[in-house]
């Protein structure tokens, strides 16, 4: 074998599969043959899944009551009228919503409140908080970020803790659920579990109280002012020392701003005592402490009892979407099959000619 004596040029390219663009490759083709079965499979799978989701969602019970207090809609209208366009609203106006269950409300039951037309996602509102302050940082406690303005400092110039519009507008209606087991019997208070309504990580990691001084949270908050709308300072939010200050469940829930102007927030879970299986039949009343003014911005307040399945609350959307889309897949599949077959014939004829 005689190799050429001339040495190859110094700039002879490398002969690798990569440089020669000949890397081994999988070359799939989106042809009708592959896509058609895919459509049918996906369609069938989606219809199955959709049916499951639909029935799950349908099995979830919801009981909803609008207690905004529009004139003539129950006894909350008195409170609404009293509190109209007053901020902060007058304290301790109460009203009541009574309902009766003819059968067991399958548990576990969750109590939500819903606000509408409340723009928690307004940019000025969303940024109006100081995560450093809420994490218990001592320096941030007395120097809230500028984004909190105009809820950064009180008129006297004292830093507000917790600062910002979100904290200031904390939802402060409270609910008490009473159950009358027997007609004409006494109303018994249903225990509401107010723990575990906020994200575990928020409650335990993200939010921290400032380090107590001499065991007193009040001293730790010394030199700060309460948010203007709050009736009492943060360290007095709750008598429970584990649920006060910044690590108050209601507060933490409120601080997670909602995505849309109509939103629900979890108020309590009903899972203790006789009510762990749900709400038994009977008459119920909810005592509402009506504090939060919503008519000023054309808002509404609702109270919702909802059961929860593996897929969360009632939401027919997913089930319907899966069903619709599954059927659509099957229909398109058939249309494409027809096109495919007819076109195949034409092709065959073409080839015959």
């Amino acid at each position, binding site marked *: 074998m005689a190799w050429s004596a001339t040495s190859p040029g110094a700039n002879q390219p490398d002969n690798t599969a990569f440089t020669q663009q000949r890397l081994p490759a999988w070359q799939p083709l989106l042809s009708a043959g592959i896509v058609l079965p895919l459509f049918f499979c996906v369609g069938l799978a989606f219809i199955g899944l959709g049916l499951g989701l639909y029935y799950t969602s349908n099995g979830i019970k919801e009981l909803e009551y609008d207690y905004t207090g529009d004139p003539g809609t129950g006894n909350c209208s008195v409170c609404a009228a009293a509190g109209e366009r007053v901020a902060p609203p007058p304290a301790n106006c109460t009203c009541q919503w009574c309902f009766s269950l003819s059968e067991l409300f399958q548990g576990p039951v969750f109590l939500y409140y819903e606000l509408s037309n409340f723009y928690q996602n*307004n940019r000025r509102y969303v940024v109006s908080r100081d995560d450093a302050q809420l994490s218990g940082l001592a320096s941030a406690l007395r120097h809230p970020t500028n984004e909190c303005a105009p809820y950064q400092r009180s008129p006297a110039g004292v830093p507000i803790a917790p600062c910002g519009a979100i904290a200031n507008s904390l939802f402060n209606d409270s609910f008490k659920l009473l159950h009358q087991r027997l007609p004409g019997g006494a109303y018994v208070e249903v225990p509401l579990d107010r723990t575990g309504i906020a994200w575990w990580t928020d409650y335990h990691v993200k939010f921290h109280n400032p380090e107590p001084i001499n065991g007193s949270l009040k001293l730790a908050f010394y030199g700060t002012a309460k948010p203007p709308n709050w009736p009492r300072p943060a360290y007095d939010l709750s008598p429970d020392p584990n649920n006060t200050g910044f690590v108050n469940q209601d507060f933490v829930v409120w601080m997670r701003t909602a995505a849309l102007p109509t939103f629900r927030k979890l108020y309590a879970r009903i899972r203790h005592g006789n009510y762990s299986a749900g709400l038994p039949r009977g008459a119920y009343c909810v005592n509402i402490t009506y504090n939060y003014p919503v008519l000023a911005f054309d808002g509404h307040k609702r109270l919702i009892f909802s059961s929860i399945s593996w897929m969360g609350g009632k939401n027919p959307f997913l089930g319907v979407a899966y069903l619709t889309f599954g059927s659509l897949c099957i229909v398109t599949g058939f249309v494409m099959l027809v096109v495919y077959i007819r076109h195949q014939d034409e092709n065959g004829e073409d080839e015959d000619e």
Partner: protein
Amino acid sequence: IDISLNLCAEAYIPQKYPDNRIVSSKYTFWNFIPKNLFEQFRRIANFYFLIIFLVQLIIDTPTSPVTSGLPLFFVIAVTAIKQGYEDWLRHKADNAMNQCPVHFIQHGKLVRKQSRNLRVGDVVMVNDGETFPCDLIFLSSSREDGTCYVTTASLDGESSHKTYYAVQETKGFQTEEEIDNLHATVECEQPQPDLYKFVGRIHVYQERNEPVVRSLGSENLLLRGASLKNTEKIFGVAIYTGMETKMALNYQSKSQKRSVVEKSMNVFLVVYLCILISKALINTILKYVWQSDPFRDEPWFNQKTESERQRNLFLKAFTDFLAFMVLFNYIIPVSMYVTVEMQKFLGSYFLTWDEDMFDEETGEGPLVNTSDLNEELGQVEYIFTDKTGTLTENNMEFIECCIEGNVYVPHVICNGQILPNSGGIDMIDSSPGVSGKEREELFFRALCLCHTVQVKDDVLVDGQKKSPDSSRSCIYISSSPDEVALVEGIQRLGFTYLRLKDNHMEILNRDNDIERYELLDTLSFDSVRRRMSVIVKSASGDIYLFCKGADSAIFPRVSEGKIDQVRSRVERNAVEGLRTLCVAYKKCTQEEYDEIHELLHSAKVALQEREKKLAEAYDQIETNLILLGATAVEDRLQKAGIKVWVLTGDKMETATTLFKLLKTSLRVLSKDEDLAFIFYVSCRLSNDLQDFGLIIDGAALSLIMKPRQTGSSGNYRELFLEICRNCSAVLCCRMAPLQKAQIVKLIKLSKEHPITLAIGDGANDVSMILEAHVGIGIIGKEGRQAARNSDYAIPKFKHLKKMILVHGHFYYIRISELVQYFFYKNVCFIFPQFLYQFFCGFSQQPLYDTAYLTLYNISFTSLPILMYSLMEQHVTSDMLKRDPSLYRDIAKNALLRWRVFLYWTFLGVFDALVFFFGAYLMLENTTVTINGQVFGNWTFGTLVFTVLVFTVTLKLALDTHYWTWINHFVIWGSLIFYIIFSLLWGGIIWPFLSYQRMYFVFIQMLSSGPAWLGIILLIIVSLLPDILKKVLCRQLWPTATERTQTKHQCLSVEQSTIFMLSQTSSSLSF
């Protein structure tokens, strides 16, 4: 020596000469940052991003300045580093050049100095092999005849040795002292970049005598950058230094060419800018409409600060508008520019790496001079080629000569063996008579003398001693390969050209006697005259003028000789594709010669219009010739299997032959005497389409191009264009270089604005290469000038096919997908954010977290598309090469048409609607977790974003036809990276962040079953229309590409079947 630079003698301009420093660098250490930044921000895109960034800095905007500042900083920094590095290299090269030592004469002594200290008027000594430090007037050389050899390879790429001549009066000065005593004044023109033009005058003052005036031409001017060869040393005087040298003047960069894709990209950009502005405008207006209720503008739970309340309404509205602009600015991604640049730069390596385009002979592969035009290679509609140098490779061989109608072939066939070196000749026609013999010898002598070939001095160059009788094997060098072929051919016929010594040409005749001819004048070759002449004086005192040139240039000037026989032979040879030259002579008396000499001298000395005067003189001299005969040199033809326009300097018959090779058959359609139009029609019988071809010559063309006074000026031009456009091939012959460029321009500017490609290898093709959209040079033997001026250079013409059909096609589909995909993915990205404004009170609340906003284009979706745009092959390269019709699928910018662009945009809008409203309906008024807890706005955004990243990446996966492991790696890798990043980003309280809004958002989302189901559903719903469209289009209206893809799949299946069958049969037969 005094030097004065004069435009003309009357207007003397006092001149300040620069020093001899060459500055090719753009920046200095001090001005690098401001100048570079200024240049970078002159790009409209960079400027736009800078404005956005500044707006973010100044006003209160929804996103932090980091989101646009970081990518912009990255882009600017990378570009600045690249440019800085390039400039540093230039600085280094400049320094090396400016500091290299130069010998020059000071007070009669040889001094060594740095090159930069050289001044105009200094006398410089240059040794063999050294490079000239500036432009020099050649004063004297160590050679007695006052010549020197120079190679200008680094200037124009011509590797041949050129002869330069010392000034007659000074060529005797051999020592430093002699030179120092020289008193002279040089007048010369202002510096100009033309390498081959120089006009000047030298006055030499000799003691007591009148000063002698000598004309100076380009043959006296040694150019900076060229180097001395085969000459021991020379002396020269510096006339142009530093930035005034012709080399420096030629540094000017070429005008920037922009590709069609880039133009479409800019148009799309404007469209998106309009979309962006209208989005911001709509939102601003709606915001103020919506806010007109005071409880919406400032509800009790979200009050404004005092300063916000007091701000002017218009100022507020304007600030809001800017804030919306900032919020949506990602729709024009800064990263697209980076990706496009990277794709072009990296992609061009595949061209240079291509083994098929590597030339073993020369050891060179393709060169990419600019990667900006890669995709333009896939858009070529017209190819302009110069046959003379491109279709043929310039490997010439002397085939025959015809003297007075008798044909001679320079080798005998003996026992079936060719003896190339034998001195005998084959007579084909009848043997010549006595006068014929005389003519024959004269013909050979003419060919031996009439040329500009140099003999390479073996003794000097190689240092090897050769025996005197081996002189026959000496090596000839010339800038024109056919001259070498001729001299070599004549050598085989018995006459050997030995050398030029002391202005005497020596030839060895058949009887091994040396004949000496004094070379009186050379009327050098030029492409307008297309002929050259020499005037020699034989030993016997006879003065001859020998003229050699193209037949069309010789025949009109011939008064005697067997013209008809020669012409028929020439035409026959031309039809066979040979290059023909005619030879004629004229005998002069001494008086006639004196007259000629006077004419030439006056023309040569002229400072103004020297060229014109010379041409006139030549024209007068080369008349009344006697035809001797013709020669034929063979061009080795290369295959050219593609549609081309041939613009050539050759004569029509040769051109026609070539045409025949390109197309099947030709027939004369009509002949218009007036315009010398000749139409040819070629009928392709294989299909019903008739392909027309047009042949036109330079004379006719100049008639067409010439504007007419009568007002009908445009008519011929338009008619010509109309005809040309309907022809599948056009051939223009006998073209001057400028005419070639004119033709290219004509086509380029015609109504449809087709994309043109010019390919050529000679200096005469440069104008056309620069004019065309894509210029390709061939790294040929005629020098590298074409290659240096081109956008791409290839070693051989045959490589053009792969370059266009395969690489161009790939580049085009890759970049068009890249552009469309970038716009698509950013519509998908930003449109949900736009929709979200309707649900957050037009408050500019971003839907996604800052990290997602910043990293979306930088890391989550960048690599897959970059890799796609480097690797994608929708059809294999073999297939593309085999089936050129696939090229039509992408012609006329097919993948970036408005229809396609709108499809992508609407697909993006559809996907965005699916993402947003899918997430909206899923999370509206409900909880999706098993523990009943609710999600906030960041979860909503993250859900949309997750669907977005997956959909956009999978959409690219659907478009990918060529899945190498790299594609798998980047596509799945990007998705995994997104997940890992999100887990990390939300999994830790980041101490450097002032907000912790993403804390555990992603993980919480994944803990919800319906979120998973929703993500899967939304991804599939978004992808479905595209799948549907793809399948239906493939089924109902398949393009040629898609047909090939399908066929290819079937073929691979069939092949394996056939293979199995053949195996069966073979096993049966044994």
